[in-house]
């Protein structure tokens, strides 16, 4: 039985080269937006802007500078599907197209998916989007095809600074904790791990070392499963159904054989 596999992304060593984005696009044969016509976003060096059906890796550029530009820093982060241990997308998928693999990763089977897009709204991280070629939602597969033959995912292979680390989750967590300790010893007390423990959706199989609040990186501070709302929503609806039924019986019941409306209001 294969071990759970995943990514540990150390954002402190990301240099924003986008080799991961390119490797991902190349290996997975993902199309370019606008037929490849370059349109600058005006948002730092980020021109792909988001994770979606054709961008399964996305390098974020966060510029934190003082008004006079004398003080500041760059934050760069290669984002990807988190392959959550408790995955919202997998939970809601009505066709069974989204599966958990033997590597504990989450994969959308494009030949089964019918494009209802429920998974897109259910993902707490907004990583899924429609691929215009297949007409179905798609996202990172953690290179399932490469893992099946013992290769590491294309993005991790291409990363020149080892910002993206691939391996068994247990090993990655040990490595990540060591790296946080190293950074704190060096004076970077803001370093912490996002998604490494089980309190966040049972643990993210792609977790991060960050040096600022999650929101700064565009990550939700408190991601949760969509099913949290199922029971209360169903209960309120059931209560509403009972009230409407009682109202209906009250209004429609036959009370004797007299006229259906009060005296004096005939039209």
């Amino acid at each position, binding site marked *: 039985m294969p071990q759970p596999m995943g990514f540990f992304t150390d954002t402190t060593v990301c240099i924003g080269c986008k080799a991961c984005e390119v490797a991902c696009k190349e290996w997975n044969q993902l199309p370019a937006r606008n037929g490849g016509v370059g349109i600058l976003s005006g948002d730092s060096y980020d021109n792909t802007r988001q994770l979606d059906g054709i961008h399964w890796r996305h390098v974020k550029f966060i510029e934190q500078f003082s008004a006079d530009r004398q003080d500041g820093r760059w934050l760069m982060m290669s984002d990807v599907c988190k392959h959550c241990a408790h995955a919202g997308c997998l939970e809601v998928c009505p066709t069974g197209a989204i599966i958990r693999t033997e590597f504990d990763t989450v994969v959308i089977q494009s030949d089964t998916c019918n494009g209802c897009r429920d998974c897109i*709204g259910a993902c707490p991280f907004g990583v899924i989007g429609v691929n215009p070629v297949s007409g179905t939602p798609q996202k990172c597969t953690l290179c399932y095809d490469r893992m099946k033959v013992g290769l590491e995912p294309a993005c991790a292979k291409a990363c020149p600074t080892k910002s993206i680390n691939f391996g068994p989750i247990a090993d990655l967590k040990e490595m990540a904790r060591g790296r946080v300790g190293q950074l704190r010893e060096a004076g970077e007390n803001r370093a912490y791990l996002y998604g490494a423990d089980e309190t966040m959706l049972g643990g993210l199989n792609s977790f991060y070392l960050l040096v600022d609040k999650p929101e700064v990186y565009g990550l939700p501070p408190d991601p949760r499963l969509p099913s949290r709302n199922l029971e209360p929503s169903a209960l309120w609806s059931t209560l509403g159904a009972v009230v409407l039924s009682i109202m209906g019986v009250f209004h429609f019941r036959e009370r004797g054989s007299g006229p259906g409306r009060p005296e004096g209001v005939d039209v």
Partner: protein
Amino acid sequence: MSSTFFTASPQWRWFIITYFFLGGLAGGSYFLATLMARFGAERDRPLVRLGYLVAFPIVCVCGLVLTVDLGRPERFWHMLVQSHTFRPMLKTYSPMSSGAWVLLLFSGCAFLSFVATLAERGRPDWAIGRKLAPAAPLGRVVTGLGAILGLYLAGYTGVLLSVTNRPIWADTTLLGLTFLTSAASTSAALLILLGAWSGLSRDRLYRLERFDRSALVVEALAIAALVASLGRIATVWLNGWGVLLAVMILGGIALPLLLDWGRPAENRPAWIAPGLVLIGGLVLRMVLVLSSDRLS
């Protein structure tokens, strides 16, 4: 900031809004027809017939718009059957999965009651139609089941929105209740409208009008509770969507209530109040669906 603001939109737009609206009308009309058949009088029969006659065509349109909205419409059956094993596909904890089954089963009940209603007038003169009449034993089973499924169809769409991670939708658990109460008011309005157009006297429509007024009051309470449950997130409606919601509440709930309260105006056309209620129901779904979609 709520974590729901870090998600992506599923881009459910006009087909889905149409489905939510029509699903409420189909389920609600069937439910009201069954209530009138069970507890009403002989004078309610024309409205019972109207309810069953509209539910089936409307639910057919529901299935159509849902299928068209899929990225791969030819795979619509994957909702019901596992494409690799051909076993039934059902996830009870996924509102979309259970909703697909309810839509199918409700369509079956709606079809049977549609046939029974046609057979009631002898067009066609089918024996099975008489057995399916609401008063017959088999008909009681079909209409009873159909009424429950109709209520489910009318309300699950709101639950479906809440069981996501999208802003507004996942920030409240009252969307199902809101859609359900709106389905009750709009389907009563539809039957009043069709009843008036088919020549039924105001006397025959009176009890349905009275139910519609009560449903509108409950709907207004549900919307107020929904806005309150959103807390600070409701500030995302401090824009055109909020204005549209306010217009919906005033024009689609308050105005019909004022028009119909007490003695109905003899010289006012019967379609004005129900027409406003129907438009209000559509606008309500439009605001709830699209205002979240724009927050991506």
